[in-house]
């Protein structure tokens, strides 16, 4: 099944054209990596996909689970199965992680016609996943990302991913700012998450996350377009030669 299909997608931010015709298809069971130098439009693609204000689609089509998403609200895209992992997870003082996770899960349940999760089941599930991500349950009582280390913030993202079980995870530089230990925990989370039913897109600057997560496709993005697609071997070429060495710069 096609989870995501982008056809000749172009988009602008503040009237500046950033994406220049992207074609990308992600099927269930696949893991893709999008790599590219700074400024190539990787984060713009994440934001356009999520429907963030200020990002305008100027051309092309974008479909999630076979449904066109242009015009859908941010929350409706999430409820349709899209999960955007943030490069810089924001801090939300005053809102506890627990409340945030519970309301997010309940929003998904209600949208699919089910009832809110009872608190006990929620706690059992959250504790279980937190443990696997080496996050103490104490941190559920804290305000969202407030006072979290870089690694904790990213593990909190993976916690949300594992609890919400989206169809498509689009993870924007989830590996940035992580030490090796944290990187391994995050990678383990991604590996646990991936299944034949869902898809993962890892947006990354470096190849190192791909040492821990096996990918099916690697796309190289430069100047708002995918200039090369290959398998995991392509990431090693980037690592060895740099983006310039691929002959597209």
């Amino acid at each position: 099944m096609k989870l995501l299909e982008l056809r000749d997608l172009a988009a602008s931010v503040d009237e500046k054209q950033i994406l220049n015709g992207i074609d990308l298809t992600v099927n269930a069971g696949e893991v893709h990596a999008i790599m590219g130098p700074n400024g190539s439009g990787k984060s713009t693609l994440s934001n356009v996909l999520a429907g963030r204000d200020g990002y305008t689609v100027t051309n092309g089509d974008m479909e999630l689970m076979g449904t066109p998403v242009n015009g859908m609200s941010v929350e409706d895209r999430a409820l349709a199965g899209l999960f955007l992992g943030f490069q810089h997870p924001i801090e939300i003082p005053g809102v506890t992680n627990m409340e945030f996770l519970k309301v997010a899960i309940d929003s998904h349940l209600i949208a699919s016609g089910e009832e809110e999760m009872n608190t006990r089941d929620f706690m059992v599930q959250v504790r279980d996943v937190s443990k696997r991500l080496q996050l103490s349950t104490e941190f559920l009582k804290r305000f969202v990302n407030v006072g979290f280390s870089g690694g904790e913030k990213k593990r909190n993202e993976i916690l949300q991913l594992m609890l919400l079980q989206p169809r498509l995870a689009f993870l924007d530089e989830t590996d940035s700012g992580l030490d090796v230990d944290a990187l391994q925990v995050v990678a383990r989370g991604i590996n646990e998450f991936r299944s034949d039913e869902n898809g993962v897109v890892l947006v990354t600057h470096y190849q190192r996350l791909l040492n821990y997560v096996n990918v099916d496709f690697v796309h190289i993005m430069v100047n708002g377009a995918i200039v090369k697609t290959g398998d995991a071997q392509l990431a090693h070429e980037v690592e060895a030669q740099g983006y310039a060495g691929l002959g597209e710069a």
Partner: protein
Amino acid sequence: MAAPQSADTVRTELLSRVLAEEVLDMPWLDRSSARSVLRDHGLPFPGKGRWQYSDLRALVEDAMTLDNAHEALGPVQNVEIRHLDRPATDAQMVELGSSDGVGELPLIDVNGLLFRSGTKLLANGNASRVAINDATGSVDRHLVSVVQDATLQLDEQFQSGNRVVLCRVRDSATLNYDLTMPSTDGVGYHCLVVWLSEGSSLNLHLASQGAQIRRSDIIVNVMGRNASATLSGGWLIENRDHLDTQVYVNHRIGQSRSEQSFHGVVDDQARSTFSGFIRIDRDANATEAHLTNRNIALSPQARAHAQPELEIYTDDVICSHGATTGQLDDDSLFLLRARGIGEESARAMLTKGFLRQVIHSESGTALLSL
């Protein structure tokens, strides 16, 4: 139709009416200081200075129409409670009439001339808890003393009416003060004055909803070394509510500390003003004083005025102040929505979160449904 009166005419006419309304049937109460302050200084100019935003005339006229007695307080362990009306000749109640040492705050003296009920509380033990109920319909005045080393938890509720609370916190004593102001269509004037002696502390939590007009003055006089005042609170007002909160922290002596943090949320066509004033006297070396006031306007018609002011007469201080007014944070909103939370729910979560940062009291949390 009569020509509109000038501010000065309003002020003079209002003053003569207030003076004529002085409560005379409690002759044992000495109201002379209130009377002379009002005669000497008059009322403030309506619409100017500290009365720029709140209708002074409406508040003074309201006080002149209120004549209910405030509900008596029940007995509490470790607290002596005396009521103004029994016995009528209690010599210790006489001082309740005096506003000496309060400074020039004419609305306190309007209360001084007109109050008909009041209490005197003397907390002389530990961890006592006293509740002062709503003042609706009354002009009342309360005198609170927390003796040396004692601790008092004071829970006060105020909606409308006219009330002055004067608190003296003696050496090494602690006053924990939870002040909640539920929503009302009425008008209200509330004034709290606290004097802090050496080594004492005040922890004030304010939580407020809106009113047709509500003015709240909070004055903290730090009189002793190593005294500390922590003031935090927030408000959530909507419709056409009007809330005017003015906090004055006066550091009269050094090696003392104060911290104020207030968050306000205004919705619909509501209007809030916050004025936070810190004064540090010339001899108050090694004082630390901080003030933050953040406001969020949820609708384009809502208005929040914020005005921090510092007056510092010595160099040896650590002082900071800041005030902001804005909207809910876009990035936070995006994160919540990107997790499937509808925009309305996301806004409500962020609004509550904004208030939770400053409201820590049980009563405040309950009032604002946090």
